[in-house]
Structures are given as structure tokens and as C-alpha cells.
């Protein structure tokens, strides 16, 4: 039983760490309607940025805000230079553009800063938190708490004046224009916010596994999270993250040694498929009604 709880809790925490990656994806999709398949590479870039500032001698509490500033600007620039020109293009063009961005970043960032794994030391203690016979990963615990706080902060942010504008934009671009909201600025800001979320994800995942291009592979579980939770729902990120994390931990925990292969990617794939077949817009997502 302790085994089950251990898988459950560590899985849930890992899922919350995935939610950090997914949050950036949702922020962009919600306002701009753009599925940013480069979000994994953006997380990688953010991880490199944190590493760069720390290797320049900044302490953690300065390096992360500095990286946040850089990544916010990075988000603004990407939106301004690339995505704004794609407005009105078919979805497949937008998807391919973000994949092109993914390739570009995966060449540019490790090319300049080095492709061997870099380490980020956030000063998190190694020893697990032990409750009875349940060992909990401390990095994931801290990451999970931060994920909940960050999602909570995003929810609060959407209640501010600026956030209300963003919500209006996510509801309807044309009506927002009509009432004098700058849709371009709102979308730009949401890209910037996604950059900030990527810094948190990049720093935490980077401290767990080291910073190199493999950070960009976090995109796949993050996609499962957003599909399950709802592609434009911020609370959906939390619920989706928890479910993807728990299933991706409990099922492999019981099956893997019998199957002889890791079933985690299978679980993730099946979650995506089942969600799409049963409830394509996810648990909390908004169902779009298509008109002829």
C-alpha cells in the first residue's frame, strides 16, 4: 500500500512539474489560438538562460528574475517577428512555424552555449521527505508547490485589469478590437508570460536532470496535460498535470517489470487518444461549435 501511495504522490508531483511546462502552452493558446509546439524548446532556452546567469556569478534569487526578464522579452520578440505575421493562416502553417522555431532554438542555443549537459544548483536538499515508508522527492515537492502557486497566480492575474483584457481577447478577437482593446499587445504579453512560466519550468527541470536539449522533449507529456485538462484552461493544467503524472507513475510502477519496457509513454499516448476520442476539448476546455 505504501508503494501505491509513493507512486501516487511522486507521480502527482511530477505531473505538477509537467504542468509548469504546459502552463506556457495554455497561456499562448488561450489568447492567441496558437498551439506553440516550440514550448519545449522555449523551456530549454529558459533553462540555459538561468544557467548562464548563474555561471556569471549571480545567486539563484537574482538569476531567475534576470532570466525571467530575458524570456519575457524573448516571448515578445517571437510573437512580434514571427507569429503576428501568421494571423489568418491555416492551423497547419502555424504548427509548422512553431516546429521550425523549435528546430531553430535547438540549433541556436546549444550551438552558442554548448551542448554538453549543464548543471543548475538551486540549493534544494537531496534527501527525500520520508513519511512512514513513503519517500517523496524533494525537488518534485518544491516544484509541485511552485506549480500550484504559479497557476494560482495566473488565475489571480486574469482577474486584474490587464488580465480581464486578456480574457476578452481570448473570447473574441474582433469584439475586443471593437471595444478598443489592443489584441496585438494582449497576445504579445501572453507570449511574454509563457516565457516567464518557461523559466520556472526550465530552472526546476534543469536542476533535476541538467540543462541540455533534452529539456525540449518535455513537450510530449505537456501536450498530454493540456489535451486532458483542456487546451485553453488554466485550472485544467493542474488537474491534467495531476492525472497525467499519477497515471504515468502508477501504471508503469505496476506494469513495467512485467512488460520489460517502460509503459509511461504508452500511458501518455493513450491519455491523449482517449481524451480526443471521448471529450476532445478536455475536462475544462471550451467546446468550439463549428458553423458552416
Amino acid at each position: 500500500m505504501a508503494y501505491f501511495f509513493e507512486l501516487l504522490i511522486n507521480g502527482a508531483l511530477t505531473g505538477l512539474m509537467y504542468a509548469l511546462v504546459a502552463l506556457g502552452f495554455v497561456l499562448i493558446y488561450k489568447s492567441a489560438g496558437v498551439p506553440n509546439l516550440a514550448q519545449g524548446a522555449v523551456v530549454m532556452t529558459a533553462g540555459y538562460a538561468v544557467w548562464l546567469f548563474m555561471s556569471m556569478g549571480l545567486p539563484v534569487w537574482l538569476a531567475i528574475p534576470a532570466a525571467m526578464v530575458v524570456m519575457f522579452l524573448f516571448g515578445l520578440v517571437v510573437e512580434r517577428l514571427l507569429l503576428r505575421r501568421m494571423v489568418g493562416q491555416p492551423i497547419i502553417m502555424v504548427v509548422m512555424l512553431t516546429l521550425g522555431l523549435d528546430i531553430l532554438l535547438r540549433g541556436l542555443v546549444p550551438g552558442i552555449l554548448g551542448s554538453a549537459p549543464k548543471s543548475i544548483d538551486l540549493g534544494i536538499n537531496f534527501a527525500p521527505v520520508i513519511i512512514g515508508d513513503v519517500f517523496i522527492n524533494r525537488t518534485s515537492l518544491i516544484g509541485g508547490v511552485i506549480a500550484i502557486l504559479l497557476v494560482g497566480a495566473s488565475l489571480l492575474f486574469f482577474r486584474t485589469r490587464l488580465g480581464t483584457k486578456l480574457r476578452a481577447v481570448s473570447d473574441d478577437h474582433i469584439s475586443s478590437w471593437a471595444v478598443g482593446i489592443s489584441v496585438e499587445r494582449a497576445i504579445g504579453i501572453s507570449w511574454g508570460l509563457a516565457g516567464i512560466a518557461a523559466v520556472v519550468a526550465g530552472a526546476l527541470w534543469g536542476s533535476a536532470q541538467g540543462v541540455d536539449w533534452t529539456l525540449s522533449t518535455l513537450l510530449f507529456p505537456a501536450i498530454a496535460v493540456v489535451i486532458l485538462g483542456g487546451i485553453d484552461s488554466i485550472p485544467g493544467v493542474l488537474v491534467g498535470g495531476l492525472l497525467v503524472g499519477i497515471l504515468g507513475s502508477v501504471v508503469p510502477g505496476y506494469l513495467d517489470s512485467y512488460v520489460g519496457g517502460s509503459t509511461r509513454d504508452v500511458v501518455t499516448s493513450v491519455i491523449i487518444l482517449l481524451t480526443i476520442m471521448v471529450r476532445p476539448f478536455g475536462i475544462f476546455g471550451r467546446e468550439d461549435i463549428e458553423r458552416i
Partner: protein
Amino acid sequence: MKWLRTTALTAALAFGSVTTAATADEIKIGLLQDFTAVYTFLTGEYNQGQQDYLTLINEEGGIDGNTFTAIVRDTGNQPQRGIEAYNRAKEEGAVLFDFLSTPVSAAILDQADADKRVVITPVHGRGDASDGTVFPYIFPMMATYWAQAANLIEFMKTNEGGLEGKKIAIVHIDSPFGKEPLPILDALAAQEKFEYKAFPYASPGNEQSAAWSEVRRYQPDFVMIWGAGGGQAVSVKTAIQNGIKPEQIHSVIWLAETDAANVGPMMKGVKRFEATASGLDHPIIQRIQEKVITPGKGAGDAKNVGTSYYNLGVATMAVSVEAARLGLEGGGPLDGDKLKAGFEKIAGYDAEGLMPAITITAEDHQGGGAGRVSEWDGEKWAPVSDWHAAYPELIRKTIEDSAAKYKEGH
């Protein structure tokens, strides 16, 4: 007509300038590796070591006046790019190739045999390619993954005074590479009467908590980790978080200084297999420092000199240059056949103490499969066993069985 000239120039650049037939005094080596995809964790340092060693040999006057040129290309781990790079380097006259990529090597093995070009697959690639009768032009030339697994098991056995009744957990990445040691463990478990269990984790291994929760409950006496890149640091960290002592952890060759930096102080005591010594304290590395790095002729960051993967790269080229020297004894110019003969003449070569003495024969292209175990002492990898080959008969039998199957077309 300016645009025409520009176009012609661009075309010439894009197609690369093909010069056929190597001249007698220039030996070309194709280092067509993966700098941008799966193998990035090691390619930079490894390739730098290879290039620096070739520069050193050239600085010292080459082999009987023959100098070495490295053709370095990125293949991105994509077979179609590897095939192109191979064919082009072949046209340019390269006689020796190192791909450092499983899918690229797989797509080229047969072609290289037909073309009579030597391919080296040091410490990676197919284990059964060590059978020189089936793979005449392929040279693993260092311990294969099978020999590495056997070496680690023998180390545990020697330290523990017998493995009977002990439990070993092997935590591996879920890929063909990760599953490679399992047949050897099957055979050794029967022979040494220990029990083992395999715990796979999903590629690339940035999250392994489920596997390690299970490992902890298995209560192993020893743990083997079998992965590569960032996943290795995650393995060590998650193991320690699950109450496994660093001393119990034994790794495949892919665990190096960067991983230790990533794990931090808790790394102390973790052991790994090594096929070459690390550190600066070796005659060859000293000479590279003096004649290549100090004059500023190094191929990369001077910080990397002496790291595990750098020295591994140096050793691969040291063996290759030695083979070229032996191959040229009968007179040049060097071609695939002479180089192959040169490799098969290597006897007791140890790169001035950088690696175990290897002896390659026409049958055994692995060169004995020796290696040793080293331990992270907080600063560097300190050896804790002597160079030796573990269970050579078993490894040889596994190689021959698998090669025989390959010959049948499987």
C-alpha cells in the same frame, strides 16, 4: 554574368569540393558524428580528443611522413545524412570511419564491408561486430557493452567475495541500447547464482521516480544503471533519494565529469566502468597539452582536456594511428585492406598507459574487452580495480552466437 559566377561558387561550396584518391602522404579519417541530437552529451569532448590527438601526431611529424586529416561532419543521428557523409568522405579518400551513432552505423555496416573501409565502433555499437570473421572491416576495438556488464559484475563479485544469493537491480533506458546487457546478466546470474531484475524507464530519462520506487522495494545489494546523457544524473539522484547508497551504484561507461557536476557532492562513491583512464596525468595527454593546446592548436575548449570522454576520443585515435603505422609497414599508400591488417597486428598496445593493453586478431576485433572500474572521489574518477577482461569465454561465446545469427540474415 556576375550572378552566374556567384551561383557556380555557391554550388561548388554546397556540393563540397570532391578530390578523389588520397595522396600517399595524407591519411583521411571520417569523424562523421552526431553533434546535434542524441549523442551531444559526449560528442563534443570525444571528437575534440580525436582531433587533438591527430594534430599531435602531425605536429610530431606524422607516421613515416604521412599526416592525418580529420573529416568532421555532423550527421544529426539521421541515417540518410550519415550515408551521404560516408559516401562523400569515401570519395575524398577516407579509409577509417567513426560514426558514434547506432542508426547510422547500422545503415552503413554492410556498405563499409563491401567498400572495404574500416569502421571503428569503440565502446558503442553492436557487440557481435567483434567477430572479425563475420564483420571483417568493423572494429569495436574496446570493451563492448557486453564486456562492460561482465566487468561490473565481476567487480561486485570480487569485492563481495561471491555473489551467491545477492540481488542486483539493473535500471536501464527503454531502448535497444538499454536492453543490451540483459542477455549477459541472464548467463551470469545462472553461473554466479545471483538474482537480478530489470527496471526500464522511458527515454530520455528526465523522470524516473516510478522505476526507483520499485527498485527500493526490491532491496538490491547492487544497482547497475544503464543509460546515457542527462538521464544518468537523474538515475543517480533518484537512486540516492530512494535510500540507495552511492557505493552501490555501478554505471555503464556513460557517466562522466559533467554528470558528477550535475549530481553534486552526493556523487561521491558512485562507480562506473571505464575503458580509458581520465585525467591529465598521462604521457600522451601531457604531450597534447604541450604541443597542441599550449600553442593554441586545440580543436575546442582547453577545459575539456583530460575529461573522460576527451581521453576516450584520444585513445580511439591512438589505436587507429597505431593500426595505420602497422599497416604502412609493408609500404603505402594506406587503403582499407592495409589498415585492417594493421589493426589485426596490434598486440599489447596500451597508448602509453592511457588504456588497457589490447591485442586485436583477425577473429577478435574487440581487442580482449578489458576495462576497469573507477569511483568518483569528489574530484575525479579514481580507479578501484585493475585493467582486466572479465568472463572472456562467456563474452566470446555471446559474440559468436550473435554474429552467427547475423550471418544467417537475422
